[in-house]
Structure formats: C-alpha cells, structure tokens
C-alpha cells in the first residue's frame, strides 16, 4: 500500500479521497490555490501544500507545479479526482515518469478512450452496441455522405471532446455546410482540435451508464446509474438502479461493457444513451465519476478505496466482494451555485452554509460557511445522496435533504432540484435528457 497520496484536486472530491485514505490508514496531502486557503478539504488530509495563484490554469491545472509539489511532499501516489487533469494522458504519464503512481488507468487507456471516434470504433469492435455514426469527417463531402447514410436529423460532435460540449444539430442537408463549419470552429475553440464526426440524433434519450472496475486481469461490472436529468449536458440528478428497465437487458449491456474493457486497470464508466429500446455507446470516463456515491449507497462498496487499493497492486478478488448485490435505491442531487431562472452562475460569500444531518441522507460538501464561491472553478457546491428501501423513499429523503440544506449569500439550484424531485414525470420515471427544459 502507498505511504502518502497526493490529492490533485479540491472541494467535494478532495474530501472524498482524503476520507478514503484515512479509512485505509494512509497519509494524504491536500493542495490549495490561494483562494482555497480556508477550504474544508484541507482539514481532512494529513498535510497540506500551497499552489500559489488563483486561476485553475495556475493551480489545479498546472501539471508541472502539481508534480513538483507531490515530489516535495514525498508522495508515492497521486489521485486526480474528477475534472481538472483526471483524464489527461500526458499528465498521467508525467506523474508516472516522476516515480509517482497515478491512481487511474494506464495512460494508454486514457488516450484511446479520450478520442471519441477511436473509442467508438474500439467499443464497436469489442461488440458493444453503438448508435449509427461516422469516423472523423475530413471535408464537407464526407460530412454529406455520412449524413445521407445515417439520416437526418443528426449531431456533429468534436472527436477530441466529451461532456456534450460543442455539439451541433443538423436537421436538413441545406443546413449541413454551415453546421459543419460551425462544429469545426467550436471543436477547435473548446478542445484545440477541429476534428468532428457525425452521429444519429436521438429523440428523448435516457443517459444510462455502467460502472466498471478492473485490475488489469479481470474487469467487473458494478451496476448502472441513471443520469438523465441534465442541464447543458451537465448532470443534475442521478440514481441507481435505473428505474423501469429490464434487469436482464441491463445485465447484458453491463457484460458487454466489461468485456469491451477487458484488461482495464482502474475505475471506469461506460456511458450510453438509451432510446427506442436500444442502448448505444456515448463515451467512457476513465476516472472516478462525480455520481459514484449512488452506486456505493446501494452496493455497500467503497469505490474510492477499491480504486486506490488496485492502483497499489491489489487484485480485484481482494478489494471487491465475490458478487455485487444491490439493495434499495439511491438518488443524488447536485447543488450548484447558479441562478436557475437566468441560467447564470452565481458567485459570492456563503454567509450561511449549513448541511443537514438526516437519517438516510449522505452529504458530500466541498464548501464551508464563510467561504467565497469564485468564478475560477466549477459550480458544484455539494451532493445530497438519499438512500431508501424503495425509489420513493430515496427520492423523498433526497428532497428533504435539499430542502433542509440552508445556503445564503449566493443563489443555488435548490428550488429547481425540489421542483424536479417532486414532479410527476420524475416520480413516474419518465426520464430523458431534455426533461429539465420541459418542467
């Protein structure tokens, strides 16, 4: 096992990793940008180290500085968390080259799966279902040919991208030339690479993803999560298991995911879109997922501890139970710093910030009372995870948790969350990725 883990992140995930290290009896080092000097994640680690500066690119995205600081603090492993450099193959490699174990998959996995068309192709070849789509489109003629073959409407997507950023919908051949040019510009702006491809457009799909864990020899499925409640392709509410779907069908897709990721050596998530009774590959995230907590809640498995132990060389059979069994239901609501009505981020000082303490409600909070919420980082303040014997109970507990979370000084999406959790379509399980726009 490692002696000391460097946590190259902040807020919710930095606290989560620090807690896992503590549970494993190993030391951890938390880092902070100047603006985060009083952040609660610092109190959970064994030691802290400063990253001078305010902006993300000077601090949590500064690979050289992070690796230098990890070496100075004599860490033998580095956990990237989620976001920032968690899916940056060059960073993972630089960490390993510095003699520090990167807690994540072999960088080659990050590279292959980070390129969306390569990932699509690799998954399809491994027998995983994919929706109709193309490879990289080199010119407008290729785009036209692909669009005709796949049929319209269709979506143009950045090959180097992910997370739903920079997608352009095309509904007619007349629109294609402009859409193709716009998609390339957006891809170049967002990811520094203007390669795009086209995929069939789905009407009201559900986002369903499959958690996997591998040790390089064996890959195991750890059930699915339903993450359809999204805004601007950012997840807002997640749950496990996915409601209203045939267990045997889900088990089949999970088996296809584990077989496609044969040889994988960490935590990973295979994301799919489900529409008209068909699953199709979306992307693979080669890291811990924000919403891992709902899977932990129904399986009793600590995914972060398992991830660290596998990175330290333990086998799946040592860190996971022989069979993964689910009990009950869990729902997670993400509390964001935002003005939901104007759809704008909200910044300022948290004059009041009081997470509730309730039965069946787990809180993962990245902030503390008095702290400033700044424009430098993403808007996730906290996650409220309600667990119950039934879906109804889990929804009810999450709703109470969101309601009882007292936050003042900035705007949050708590009202929106309560509206969704209490809405008829959500309770009835009629979920799709566009549902937030319709409530």
């Amino acid at each position: 096992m490692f002696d000391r883990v460097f946590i190259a992140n902040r807020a919710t995930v930095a606290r989560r990793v620090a807690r896992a290290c503590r549970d494993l009896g190993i030391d951890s080092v938390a880092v902070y940008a100047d603006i985060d000097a009083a952040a609660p994640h610092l109190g959970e680690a064994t030691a802290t180290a400063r990253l001078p500066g305010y902006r993300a690119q000077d601090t949590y995205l500064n690979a050289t500085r992070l690796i230098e600081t990890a070496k100075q603090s004599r860490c033998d492993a580095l956990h990237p968390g989620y976001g920032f450099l968690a899916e940056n193959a060059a960073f993972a490699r630089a960490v390993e080259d510095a003699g520090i174990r990167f807690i994540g998959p072999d960088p080659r996995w990050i590279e292959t799966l980070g390129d969306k068309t390569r990932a699509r192709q690799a998954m399809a070849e491994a027998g995983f279902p994919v929706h109709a789509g193309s490879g990289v489109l080199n010119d407008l003629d290729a785009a036209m040919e692909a669009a005709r073959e796949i049929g319209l409407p269709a979506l143009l997507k950045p090959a180097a991208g992910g997370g739903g950023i920079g997608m352009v919908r095309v509904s007619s051949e007349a629109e294609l030339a402009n859409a193709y040019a716009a998609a390339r510009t957006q891809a170049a702006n967002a990811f520094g690479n203007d390669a795009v491809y086209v995929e069939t457009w789905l009407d009201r799909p559900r986002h369903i993803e499959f958690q996997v864990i591998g040790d390089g020899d064996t890959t195991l499925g750890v059930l699915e999560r339903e993450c359809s409640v999204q805004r601007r392709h950012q997840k807002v509410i997640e749950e496990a298991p996915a409601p209203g779907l045939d267990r045997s069908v889900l088990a089949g897709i999970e088996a296809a995911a584990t077989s496609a990721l044969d040889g994988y050596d960490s935590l990973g998530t295979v994301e799919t879109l489900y529409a008209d009774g068909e699953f199709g590959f979306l992307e693979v995230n080669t890291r811990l997922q924000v919403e891992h907590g709902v899977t932990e809640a129904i399986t009793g498995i600590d995914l972060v501890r398992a991830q660290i132990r596998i990175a330290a060389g333990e086998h799946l059979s040592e860190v996971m139970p022989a069979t993964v069994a689910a009990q009950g239901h869990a729902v997670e609501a993400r509390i964001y710093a935002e003005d939901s009505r104007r759809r704008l981020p909200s910044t300022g000082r948290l004059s009041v910030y009081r997470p509730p303490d309730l039965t069946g409600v787990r809180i993962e909070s990245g902030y503390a009372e008095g702290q400033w919420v700044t424009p430098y980082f993403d808007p996730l303040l906290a996650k409220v995870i309600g667990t119950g014997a039934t879906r109804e109970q889990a929804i009810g507990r999450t709703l109470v948790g969101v309601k009882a979370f007292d936050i003042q000084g900035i705007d949050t999406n708590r009202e929106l969350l309560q509206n969704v959790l209490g809405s008829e379509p959500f309770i009835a399980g009629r979920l799709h990725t566009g549902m937030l726009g319709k409530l």
Partner: protein
Amino acid sequence: MAKLEIESEVTGNVWKVEVEAGARVDAGDVLMILESMKMEIPVEAPEDGTVAELRVTEEDAVEEDQVIAILET
C-alpha cells in the same frame, strides 16, 4: 444617437472579444464571450448599433454589473 451601456451579468473573465471598436452590429450579435465557473456566457448586442467603446480585453476579470462596452444606437 443614444449611448447604451452593456453590463456584465456575471463575475468572471473575458474569454473572447468577438467585435472591434467601431464595428456595426445587429441586435443579437455576440459582442464577447465571458467565462465563469467553466460556463461560457455570450454577451449580445441588445439593439442594432455601432460599438463605440470596448472597456475590456481578453482575459480581463469582470464584476457583475460592470460596464464592459458602449453601444451607440
């Protein structure tokens, strides 16, 4: 000719300036794109007019309600 103050709706920074001072713009044209909390926030011309003044440049920090450009309509 009326001078219209364009204010930032958020605290963040200027990611991209899409127009130059003196440019003619139509209502709805994107003048600049702000960035806050990893979100891109386009600033559009509220009316047809001419960009009389740009008070910020790329990478500048902006405060909520800060005047970032003047539009002559």
